[in-house]
């Protein structure tokens, strides 16, 4: 593939494709985020349902604790019997209306059970902090708040106190048996009985430190994987959390199939379409250029075939012209036209052959000693009849009369092309040819007074098959390879053909490398 085509390929395939990928990926990511949030919400919803169940359980516990903390008697023996029966209470305590802890009474350790002494030790920080349970919560509109929870950290983890203010102004509190609560919560949660639908998930109840207390579901999450959703447990156990882990393939199935796959398949189809289109265009253009090559070679062959008979026609036309007597003016002119037209045809064929040769990189030049001015004069004389017909005045300033090495055929062809343009476009004007020599280079300037070449199109005229189309050129025939060949030849000859800025008409400067003979 040619570099230019490659670039084209990049532009028409890769650019839109990468653009599509970029937007697709962004879209997919957005969609994934949205879906992810939706999944998380759904999972959180499920956890919240479970949490609601636990909240109902806790409400039941509260009812039981409200009863336990409103005993018939505040006698120590009676309180002990309450504790023995209420499985949620690990230890009861009583604070009198003066905010003094009256049971278990720290002062009389002898009358305390070991459990009561342990309790005082455990809750020391609570008493040291001056916690009275009632005043703290009894503010403003919440004065109706007659019971509540208090949590504190002890070495075994979080501990919970439920307290109730009695009408007498006393506060009765219960240290809640954390383990009993835990066992109740665990018992209330679903188990892995057959038929439970949590095949690809795992719900864990974890404690403050993230250690699982209970779990169900068949999926075993890898260590370190964060949960897909997390909900703290209802008060007062909000430092415990419910976590939902979902098997990666389930998430993939929910997330991936809908977006990533769609986007990817869309992109793939797009890419295939683009590549297909490119290949189609590439083949089209390849076919066209192949056809063009075939056409050129056909023309080339035809031209070859035409060349020999044309040479004969030209030769005999010129002979005929010489043999016709001066008197028979009409016949002589007709013979001259035949000779001139065959000369033009010959130039055309030469151009075609040169172009075909240039296509095959087969151009070469054969310098031989000669005088450039003589060659110019010879070409001009060939156009004499044509210029006369087109009422073109010709002026030639000679300045290249030294004998140098150059390819006369080549120069003839270049000049022929330039003059034939003048003939075509500058009829009724004038042509001024000016030659000069400077060291190893010969310069020939060809200036006419035709319509000239618009500034914006000056670069295009040297490209093959470019024919400027405007009202002046319309109706004029041509192959569109003349100037292209002319410049190629000039460059082959170590020089150049350039268009010079001019106010009026076209002004070509031809330079050739012409070492002295």
């Amino acid at each position, binding site marked *: 593939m040619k570099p230019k085509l490659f670039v084209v390929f990049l532009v028409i395939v890769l650019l839109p494709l990468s653009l599509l990928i970029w937007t697709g990926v962004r879209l997919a990511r957005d969609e994934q985020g949205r879906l992810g949030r939706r999944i998380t919400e759904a999972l959180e919803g499920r956890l919240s349902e479970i949490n609601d169940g636990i909240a109902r359980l806790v409400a039941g516990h509260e009812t039981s604790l409200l009863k336990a903390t409103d005993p018939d008697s505040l006698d120590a023996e009676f309180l002990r019997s309450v504790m*023995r029966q209420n499985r949620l209470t690990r230890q009861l305590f009583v604070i009198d209306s003066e905010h003094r802890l009256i049971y278990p009474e720290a002062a009389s350790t002898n*009358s305390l059970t070991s*459990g009561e002494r342990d309790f005082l030790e455990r809750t020391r920080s609570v008493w040291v902090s001056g916690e009275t349970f009632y005043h703290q919560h009894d503010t403003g509109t919440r004065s109706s708040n007659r019971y509540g929870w208090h949590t504190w950290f002890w070495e075994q983890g979080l501990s919970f106190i439920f307290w109730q203010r009695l009408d007498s102004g006393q506060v009765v509190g219960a240290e809640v048996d954390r*383990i009993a609560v835990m066992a109740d919560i665990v*018992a209330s949660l679903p*188990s*892995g009985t057959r038929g439970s639908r949590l095949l690809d998930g795992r719900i864990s109840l974890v404690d403050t430190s993230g250690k699982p207390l*209970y*779990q169900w579901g068949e999926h075993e999450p890898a260590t370190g994987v964060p949960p897909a959703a997390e909900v703290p447990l209802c008060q007062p156990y909000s430092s415990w959390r419910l976590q939902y882990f979902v098997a990666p393939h389930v998430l993939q199935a929910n997330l991936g199939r809908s977006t990533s796959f769609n986007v990817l398949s869309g992109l793939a189809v797009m890419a295939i379409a683009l590549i297909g289109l490119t290949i189609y265009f590439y083949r089209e253009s390849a076919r066209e250029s192949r056809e063009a090559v075939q056409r050129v070679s056909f023309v080339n062959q035809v031209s070859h075939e035409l060349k020999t008979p044309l040479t004969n026609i030209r030769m005999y036309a010129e002979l005929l012209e010489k043999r016709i007597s001066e008197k028979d003016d009409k016949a002589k002119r007709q013979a001259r036209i035949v000779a001139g037209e065959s000369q033009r045809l010959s130039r055309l064929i030469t151009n075609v052959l040169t172009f075909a040769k240039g296509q095959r990189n087969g151009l070469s030049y054969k310098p031989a000693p000669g005088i450039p001015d003589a060659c110019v004069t010879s070409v001009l004389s060939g156009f004499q009849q044509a210029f006369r017909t087109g009422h073109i005045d010709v002026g030639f300033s000679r300045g290249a009369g030294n004998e140098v090495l150059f390819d006369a055929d080549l120069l003839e062809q270049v000049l022929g092309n330039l003059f034939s343009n003048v003939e075509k476009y500058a009829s009724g004007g004038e042509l001024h040819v000016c030659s000069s020599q400077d060291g190893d280079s010969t310069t020939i300037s060809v200036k006419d007074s035709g319509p000239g070449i618009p500034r914006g199109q000056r670069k295009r005229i040297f490209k093959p098959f470019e024919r400027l189309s405007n009202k002046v050129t319309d109706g004029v025939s041509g192959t569109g390879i003349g100037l292209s060949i002319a410049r190629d030849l000039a460059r082959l000859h170590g020089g150049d053909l350039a268009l010079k800025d001019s106010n009026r008409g076209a002004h070509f400067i031809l330079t050739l490398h012409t070492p002295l003979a």
Partner: protein
Amino acid sequence: MRISTWRLLTVVILGVVIANISVFANQVKLDVSLANPVLVEGKKQTTYLKIGLTGFEMKGDVQRTPANVAIVLDKSGSMQGDKIKKAREAALMVLDQLNNKDIVSVVAYDNNVSVLVPATKASDKTAITAGINRLSAGGSTALFAGVSKGASEVRKFLAKNKVNRVILLSDGLANVGPDSPGELASLGASLIKEGMSVTTIGLGLGYNEDLMTQLAQRSDGNSYFAETTKDLTRLFKAEFGDVLSVVAQELVVKVHCAKGIRPVRVIGRQADIAAGTTTAFINQIYSSQQKYLLLEVELPAGRKGKNMDVAKVSVSYANMETKTTDTLSSTIAARFTDSEEKVADSVDRDAMIAAVTQLATENNDLAVVLRDKGDIEAARKMLVDNGKFLATNAVILESAKLKEYSGANFDDAENLDEASWGRQRKSMRGWQMFNSMQQEAR
């Protein structure tokens, strides 16, 4: 009865009064005795008060208390093969012994918990058998959750007139959820408040015996140690013999010490001592079986020839035969003498054996603590001394039981090295549990 006969032969007569004896219905027998009913005068001293409770004999299966049992089975990976097979067999054997008045549930756990058979009448045997046969092993060990679920199955049909029990069979450790012996002990303590006991059966050598025994002990259940699967069926049978022969439940024992008498501590069982009153719970008493509470008491100096009131004991319990709540009470007094000989002669053999057993059990427990700290020598010395102490008393008290325990202590002392410690520790914990809870079978 030998005990009474023996006591009659002694010189001093104790004031043992059994109140509220119903002539018609069977009653639990309350037996209060002092290890030293006669004491030396003129000095402050301590002795042991034994409160014995003996279940009456159950007559046939007709009267049997319905059982409400949750069988909690460990199906973690380590149970694979023979163990899980035996566990299934044991569970099926339990099922076989139940009738349609009983309720049974089967819970299995690894890292998850599954309720294989929710609490249901034992009459539906095909479904239950199918549930048990579904059991296969694999995974880790959510022991806490397993027991919690088992307890919640029992709770569905929790009734005072049933034997409410969770039977846990595990060969492993708890590694999901609360897993410390203390936490499991708390679980046991909270379950007994509902009248539910947990019996633990440790299988093989892998389980955490402290966790298993404490869970059982705090809920007044039994704890067994089955080294091989062969023992399993036997233990299940023993446990079920117990379960099916409960004659009294939810016993509250209160010991009110007389003025001047100080209750020092209760050895072996959990009890609350506050302001002269000792309160203890016993969840159940089995047919013809004695359970006792041993209280160390400190008596002030007494005078020769004088009686001293020591304590008043009252017991309330649910009589499983009459379905009534019955009460028993008794008082006990001590006498003083100036003769050491009389003191020695008057020793209450039965109470003294109990005291020696509990003290030796304490020492045995201490030896475990020492060995856990790595102090093998101190532990060995402790055990050897303990063995000697038991042997001496076995001779004085002519007790085969003490002699056996003495031998066990000497045996323990020989097996403190790393290789046998794991097994030996379980055996020691088993003995300790057996002694302190007065289990029927080991």
